């Protein structure tokens, strides 16, 4: 018997998904103390009285965490509130030093946003509501497999600022959930508020999922699915949980409200051992932190100063640089690449050639070397200079590719390399004719066939000259000379 798949079940059943996304904010220091947030330090070295929860220590809020959280909330279309309140979420866990997490509860930073995640077949937008964005602090790390019989606690991460982004239950398939996450990630990247890497744990996703018969308007009982560590993992986990729930419902069973854990290796969801009703976080306003007051003017200015959002940039690239849909998608995938492209395009004044180079040579080099665009050796103005050399006929397209390789290797400017490597294009007729003579002498058969009308052999002959000239010959002039010589 084969397991039913989600796709098939969706004819009769509807999946309803809401996501809770935790995102680490990219600050230098922690949310409530001045410890470094640097990743990868030896255990318990980025700690102080505050994040160790030593008796008597008190939290002091990091201004930059507020700036980044506000920027993220505004980018998600939320209303940022002039007053929000920190609260304590109380529970015991060894990587939660104070025995409570400082979070926000009934007075979050921001509420009521929306993001567009795609288009229906009829062209209308598919939107997901953002219920709230609130600020909180991260817990430490528990390492379970390092020592026999013991769990090892590292508090370097304890107190790193987070935002939690809670969506409305607006997604109707695993694919929509994946699309929402990708859009969210891209927006947050564009806002430069986080590294948003699920692999590194700077973005974490919990999903609430329920199933109901098509046509039903009431929500079914939901379960919470945790422990996914990639977007595709989220999609697969949602499908598996949906299939499980429909299986229970079709047999007349009832869904138990519980937490499910995704086991990526086994491709399964299984219930966690959490007892229902054991959640009692005893939230109350954090007395160590007075309410956070933000002036409306400050919020408005933050909105005015938001970096360009991905959608706006896509639209602008399409109109300003006359790029096709595919090129726009590729070039705006991440904000650094888009910045890079834009610098090249502006400096070279050739949007199309810039797009071809960035999507071609540049991305190939990045892929091969594993470099990030931000640390890529060939800076945009150098690449633009290379494009200008090609445009002005100083170097050939073939030579340009060689020059580019040298630029990647040495970081020198294209003019220097062209000069040093002798790659400046030769369009002096006497030199070109000399090479042509040699090739005709070396390839008499091909030359004869060309003379007799086999036009396609021009490629072979020109190619041979190009090789002889080590790419320096101007192919356009060469073609003309060839035609003149054989009178075709």
């Amino acid at each position, binding site marked *: 018997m084969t397991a039913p798949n989600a796709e098939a079940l969706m004819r009769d059943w509807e999946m309803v998904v809401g996501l809770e996304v935790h995102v680490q904010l990219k600050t*230098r*220091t922690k949310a409530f*103390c*001045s*410890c*470094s947030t640097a990743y990868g330090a*030896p*255990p*318990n*070295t980025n*700690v*102080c*009285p*505050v994040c*160790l929860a030593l008796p008597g*220590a008190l939290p*002091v*809020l*990091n*201004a*930059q965490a*507020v700036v980044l959280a506000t920027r993220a909330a505004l980018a998600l279309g939320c209303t940022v509130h002039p007053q929000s*309140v920190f609260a304590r979420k109380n*529970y*015991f*866990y*060894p990587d*939660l030093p104070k025995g409570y997490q400082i979070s926000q509860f009934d*007075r979050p930073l921001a509420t009521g946003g929306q993001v567009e995640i795609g288009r229906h077949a009829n062209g209308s937008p598919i939107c997901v509501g953002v219920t709230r964005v609130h600020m909180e602090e991260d817990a430490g790390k528990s*390492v*379970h*497999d*390092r*020592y*026999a*019989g*013991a*769990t*090892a*606690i*590292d*508090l370097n991460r304890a107190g790193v600022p987070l935002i939690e982004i809670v969506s409305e239950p607006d997604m109707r398939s695993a694919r929509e959930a994946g699309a929402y996450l990708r859009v969210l990630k891209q927006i947050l990247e564009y806002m430069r508020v986080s590294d948003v890497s699920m692999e590194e744990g700077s973005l974490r996703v919990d999903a609430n999922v329920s199933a109901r018969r098509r046509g039903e308007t009431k929500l079914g009982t939901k379960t919470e699915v*945790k422990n996914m560590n990639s977007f595709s993992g989220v999609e697969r986990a949602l499908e598996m949980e949906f299939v499980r729930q429909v299986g229970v419902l079709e047999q007349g069973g009832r869904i138990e409200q519980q*937490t499910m*854990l995704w086991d990526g290796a086994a491709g399964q969801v299984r219930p*966690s*051992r*959490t*007892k229902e009703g*054991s*959640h*009692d976080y*005893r939230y109350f*306003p954090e*007395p160590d*932190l*007075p*309410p*956070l*007051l933000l002036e409306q003017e400050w919020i408005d200015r933050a909105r005015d100063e938001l970096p360009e959002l991905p959608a706006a940039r896509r639209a602008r690239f399409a109109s300003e640089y006359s790029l096709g849909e595919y090129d726009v998608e590729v070039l705006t995938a991440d904000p650094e690449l888009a910045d890079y492209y834009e610098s090249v395009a502006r400096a070279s004044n050739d949007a199309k050639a810039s797009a071809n180079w960035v999507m071609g040579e540049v991305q190939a080099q990045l892929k091969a070397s594993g470099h990030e665009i931000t640390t890529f050796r060939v800076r945009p103005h150098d690449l633009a200079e290379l494009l200008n050399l090609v445009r002005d006929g100083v170097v050939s397209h073939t030579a340009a590719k060689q020059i580019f390789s040298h630029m990647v290797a040495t970081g020198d400017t294209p003019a220097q390399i062209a000069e040093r490597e002798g790659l400046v294009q030769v369009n002096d007729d006497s030199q070109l004719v000399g090479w042509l003579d040699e090739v005709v002498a070396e390839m008499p058969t091909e030359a004869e066939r060309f003379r007799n009308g086999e036009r396609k052999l021009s490629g072979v002959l020109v190619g041979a000259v190009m090789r002889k000239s080590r790419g320096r010959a101007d192919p356009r002039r060469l073609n003309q000379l060839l035609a003149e010589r054989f009178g075709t």
Partner: protein
Amino acid sequence: MAVTIDDVRHVAALARLGLSDERAASLAQEMNTILGHMDALSAVDTSGVDAVAGVGAGGLPVRADKGPPIPLLRSLDAFAPEVRDGFLLVPRLSTHDTAEEA
């Protein structure tokens, strides 16, 4: 709103306090007596009254995003019950135990 032994057990579990049966029973009694005195509050009309949310109406002061942190003048080893290779050690939890199970 009488506090039962079950309430005492539930609250003790939330607070991670181990209680003998005897102590749980006496606590139920003590809590009922004390909370009984608190019932005076239920007679007060508080409609429309704000609950104090953090004293200090001046708002929340913030700090610049920079170090250095407050130094620890004694190392973790000097005061932590069990440290190995820089980690704090606690009795083993299974990998996916969530907070409520700890």
